């Protein structure tokens, strides 16, 4: 099947005083039209930077895309200039950020900001205004008419995230990048927001790239999962396969550290050690330090085995390589 988004060997680096920080170091994945790909990993693994790289919004001047290809609808969008990217942002690819409290401009009304999302891409003001109201209704704001004239600080976090969703979906994008859309919200609100996103995704037939560290959300909404560790994808598979049979020791560790019914009463497992320094990745397997199944071979970098549609694992362990054959 034709992929909507295909990221190949993306490297996004940062120049810092400690040297070059390779935050994203050879990441590949794809998203099929209408499907959801989750990127899972702990803080600092490079998942958010991957998302920002797609829109070419990596914080400048320190950050830059060193190499790689990002194909969207068949076109390599890294070839586009910053100005040309503008037509894509918000219209074809929209993004929801983690912090609904600060992602809205405090000095502008909700209606203004929602309309702007549309007028930027050529919609005339009255039409944008009308659609803004419609959108606010659709995302479930209690009093959409009043909300148009309200300022961000007058809304709760959950309501603000609903507004962010309305803004992101205003132009019916083909791809939604959701960067930890529920992390900053209360648990009860998280579920509401996630199901709203899912509902709207189905309604618009939109693909989604979901960045998260919450495996519970992944199991509910994602079709495919890529697990990132230390700037690389260490394992990728259809969600069901990955949850059923994680192969990479890091993925296994992630699952083992979740509370589960069959381990009731036991301590939660933790992964020992810390993520290595991004300015100075180990030459071999980046997870070797913390890995319980370490081999001699692990001092050499493991390749990502397997094909893109099924399972891919970056590990030297025979058990990991086996399933990929």
């Amino acid at each position, binding site marked *: 099947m034709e992929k909507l988004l295909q990221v190949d060997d993306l490297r996004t680096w940062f120049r810092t005083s400690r040297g070059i920080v390779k935050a994203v170091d050879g990441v590949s994945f794809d998203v099929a039209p209408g499907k959801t790909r989750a990127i899972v990993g702990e803080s600092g693994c490079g998942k958010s930077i991957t998302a920002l790289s797609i829109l070419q*919004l990596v914080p400048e001047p320190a950050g830059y895309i060193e190499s790689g290809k990002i194909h969207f609808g068949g076109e390599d969008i890294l070839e586009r200039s910053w100005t040309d990217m503008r*037509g894509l*942002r918000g219209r074809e690819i929209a993004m929801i*950020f983690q912090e609904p409290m600060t*992602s809205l401009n405090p000095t502008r009304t909700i209606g203004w900001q929602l309309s702007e999302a549309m007028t930027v891409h050529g919609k005339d003001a009255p039409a944008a205004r009308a659609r803004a109201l419609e959108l606010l209704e659709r995302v479930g704001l209690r009093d959409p008419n009043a909300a148009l004239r309200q300022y961000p600080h007058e809304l709760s976090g959950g309501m603000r995230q609903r507004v962010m969703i309305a803004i992101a979906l205003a132009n019916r994008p083909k791809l939604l990048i959701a960067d930890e859309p529920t992390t900053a919200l209360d648990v009860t609100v998280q579920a509401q927001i996630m199901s709203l996103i899912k509902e709207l995704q189905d309604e618009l037939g939109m693909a989604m790239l979901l960045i998260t560290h919450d495996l519970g959300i992944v199991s509910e909404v994602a079709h495919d999962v890529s697990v990132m560790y230390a700037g690389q994808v260490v394992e990728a598979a259809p969600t069901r396969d990955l949850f059923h049979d994680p192969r990479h020791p890091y993925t296994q560790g992630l699952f083992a550290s979740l509370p589960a019914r069959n381990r009731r009463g036991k301590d939660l497992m933790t992964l020992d050690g810390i993520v290595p320094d991004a300015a100075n990745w180990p030459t071999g397997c980046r997870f070797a330090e913390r890995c319980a199944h370490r081999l001699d071979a692990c001092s050499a970098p493991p390749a990502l085995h397997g094909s893109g549609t099924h399972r891919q694992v970056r590990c030297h362990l025979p058990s990991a390589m086996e399933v990929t054959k």
Partner: protein
Amino acid sequence: MSPTLLHLLYNLSPLALIGVAVVIFLRARQTPLWGEAFRRLARNPSARVAMAVIGIYATIGIADSVGWYDATTQERRTVIDAIFERKPERTYSAPLAEMTTGEAKPQKIREKHILGTDSIGADVFYRTLKGVRTAFQIGGMTVLIVTPLALLLGLTAGYYGKWRDDVITYIYTVLSSVPGILLQIAMVLVLGKGIIQICLALGITRWVGLCRMVRGETIKHREREYVRSAKALGVTDMVILVRHILPNLLPVVIISTTLGFSNLVLSEAILSYLGVGVPDNVGSWGNMIDAARDELARDPVIWWNLTAATGAITGLALSLNLFGDALRDAVDPRLRS
């Protein structure tokens, strides 16, 4: 056009100014930030006193801007002239005195002078009032030069960074290492004496502080999530700068402009005192102080000239500063130190 009509048309400018101020105030009151700030200001007693004093000064300034053409003297007469101008005496007289001082043979004076008269017998109270309009003109016009310049350069340097930042930072670093007063004197000597010339001289040397602040704030806001979200929506840099970042900077800009205004009033006095200020035929507190230079050494001491001018300056500058501080607290209570 007949001078009568022309001078009546002049009156439109102060009226337009009041209109603009009222419109801005009413629109600002609609926004939650300023609406709340105004309510806090109204509750703050020292802000109320400061606003009342500024209001009195402003009323005098405006009254001195509304006038008509006097056919007999062939000069413009303002409301202030009509009410407060007194017939000149021969020379100095103390406040409310009956006789002149400083003459071998003191003369009986013709009218009461609340603050006495100066060396050429002019009413000191009237001269003090005439300084109000000049102070506001210089403060206001300089602010109109400084603010756009500082905003333009500060926003550009802060948002785009790189070479633009380097160039702008370099310019203001150099400018701020030259003593401002020397530059101002040099500029007035080159451009000539006059209100507009002084405003230019003050404007060109005074934008650095505001520019530096705007640059810093812009750098801070550039990294905010809402700017990133706007970029993710495909909003252009120009629109982000003008319609997203600028409204967030307005509180600090307005506060620092208010505080800067009082500084400008003082600067005018200093320049006039140094003899490079406004022309002699324009009312000016600086000129009054300059003229009073030797008066404290006389016997009997001629203190009222200096006292009146200094008092007028202090009153305005103090209330502007109090108002600026109160405004800062009202806009963002967290800034209170």
